[in-house]
């Protein structure tokens, strides 16, 4: 390329840099469509499940009474519930977040297994009063109302 007319060097450099940047952007857009992990509510996952093995996130309430610890002491099974009495069983191996309890909100990162059980690699729970996983924020609207109903029944 040293034979190239030096007059146009700047132009050539600019064009090459632009090509590289556009390539990066196209690559990013292409990869984002495939690799971004989508957020599912339980009812969405029931009606239109993601492909088995695709990385997704599932957010909902931990169904009261569903939490079971297996005999190895570190694997738990529970169900995440959403609207329209939707219910997705979840399996997770690991140390659960501190505020992970039955009846609380949770976001599970993982993938749907072939048997319909969601295999979670990571659980995000409400961390403290200042730090709520983003997906749990908007969820409050309908579920908080349901929860409030459930929890105030006994008081009346």
């Amino acid at each position: 390329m040293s034979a190239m007319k030096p007059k146009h060097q700047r132009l050539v450099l600019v064009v090459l840099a632009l090509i590289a940047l556009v390539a990066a952007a196209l690559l990013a857009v292409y990869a984002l469509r495939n690799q971004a992990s989508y957020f599912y509510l339980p009812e969405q996952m029931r009606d239109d499940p993601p492909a088995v093995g695709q990385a997704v996130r599932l957010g909902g309430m931990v169904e009261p009474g569903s939490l079971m610890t297996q005999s190895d002491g570190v694997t738990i099974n529970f169900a995440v519930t959403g609207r329209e009495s939707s219910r997705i069983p979840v399996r997770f191996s690991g140390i659960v977040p501190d505020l992970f309890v039955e009846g609380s909100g949770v976001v599970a990162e993982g993938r749907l297994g072939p048997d319909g059980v969601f295999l979670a690699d990571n659980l995000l729970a409400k961390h403290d009063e200042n730090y709520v996983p983003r997906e749990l924020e908007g969820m409050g609207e309908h579920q908080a109302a349901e929860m409030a109903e459930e929890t105030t029944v006994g008081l009346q």
Partner: protein
Amino acid sequence: MIAELGLAALWLAAALAFLQMAAGALALRAGPDSEIARLTRPGAVVQGALALVSFAALLYVFAVTDLSVALVAANSHSLKPWIYKVSGAWGNHEGSMLLWVTVMALAGGLIALVERRLPERTMQATLAAQGFVALGFYAFLLLSSNPFARLEPAAREGLGLNPLLQDIGLALHPPTLYLGYVGLSVAFSFAVGALLTRQVTPDFARVMRPWVLGAWIFLTLGITAGSYWAYYELGWGGWWFWDPVENASLMPWLAATALLHSVSVLASRDALRVWTIMLGVVAFSMSMVGTFLVRSGILTSVHAFAVDPERGSFILALLAIYIGGALLLFALRAATISEGERFSVASREGALVFNNVMLSGILAIVLLGTLYPLLTEAFGVRVSVGPPYFNPVSAIFAIPMFAVMAVGPLLRWRRDRWGRIGKQLALIAALLLAGLVLISMIGGIALLPLLGLAFALALGVASFLPLRGRRLARTPLATWGMVIAHFGIAVSLFGMASESAFSTERLAALEIGQATTVGPWQVELAAVGPQAGPNWTALAGQMVARYDGGNPVEIVPMARSFWAPPQQTSESVLVTRWNGQLYAVLGDAAEGGRWQVRLWWKPFVTFIWYGGGLIALGGMLSLIGRVAGDLKRRRVRRRARQRREDAEVPA
């Protein structure tokens, strides 16, 4: 009283920023020798001092826990250890923004005080730009995030600081990062000043270089420390999560790294004029985008202290003005900057340009990946973008970059032949191939870690090749700096690849007295009992760890409960050996009197941060070399002038 003093100092500093901007701008018309031009430099210096006074006032109210200040009441607690009281001053939105403008004002004051090499007109324009940017952030602070607002009546007790932030890492990480983040504002202002006065010259690059280098060193240290902090404090065993907040610090670093190299080309070869200016604008723009992401509350993370849409739109408006304005100026003036020196593809400039483009590509990929969830959310689709996107896609650009990085420093400036460095090229290629073949023979290693290990090997050796044939004692410090920083990249890359390829994890529920293994370690749970600290209680697991049946090491990971604010954290324990780290976390009680234990063995994981340290050290050596060389040149010139004057006197 002290709080009011701090607030008054802040208003005065803002007024001086306005003066600095106005005087600098008017001086462009009136000329650098006019009355008005004489106000700019003192304005910048006094503004820096006032901002410092204001920040000192904030430190004071936090140190004495003055609960009549709303910010202290919301973020501190009288029972907190002293060091966390002080560091809590910037562990919140308002305090960290005050730190932001303080650093910006200090940087502006410093250039006003010491920088005399540029034409005075360019300096005036630069200081005006610096004042203009600072003014926006003063307005943000004073109008929407006043750190000194009083609370009436005073609180009885503070609400406390997020326990995750009560760590020595926090005491150092944000100030270091901010020095880098905001230090880049100087590069931005120089770029704007040079554009306004059409003075894009090697001299300009030589003036800008130490500032870019200094900011870049702090950024490197800040990112390295932040990564280590996340690694041991969060207890997840990971060291980089591609969290938007981490990306917010990585993006300015990528731009600053590119800028650092292109400014060197401009300084020594008078090429890449437009590109350098562009990067100067982009680097600080990335700092501002990062500030927007972190401070607007658009993200939820441990870094986002408050969700307040008003603040978000305020910062967004500032972003639009500054980035948009600078890019507009760039578009108008770029064509008038004449082309610099030319060079052939096989030259050091060629390699630097290639890697600049690669760095920009990675920057684009990280930026798009970070913004994508925000964009899709506007359309009601919630996604998260994580390692499955960032790792492979950025590797597509990073791997050619590592290859060129190994070769580039061996090339000559302007024009070279590949044949001249044929032997070195063959050595690097042989190392790379040997690494790929040997490491893939271990088996079970994914493609990216395999490539990482092989490139780390090749690059580690190649980074020392530029010293071949030189007399080491006479090699300039800046060259040593480059060699060490490039070697640091190899070391860090090796750590990352090794952690990803060879880490082993064990998750188990253990009875007291029971043992488990992870990698070469045997770990026994000896006892679990309560412990108490100044503002927490904890369940502490006493464990005995043996490496390969060797001497026992006692470790005590804890699950801590803080009461102000009420929050649980897990205090992991790290056992560091030269060849890696054992990482232990205590979980919850399991049925049957067992306890959950999570253990990792991470071979050579520490190399990630050793590498980061080496990169910063390389930067420091280079900075010292440049500044010392500059001072020497000035001394020589002064002596020459004196001698000339002495010679003239008798004549």
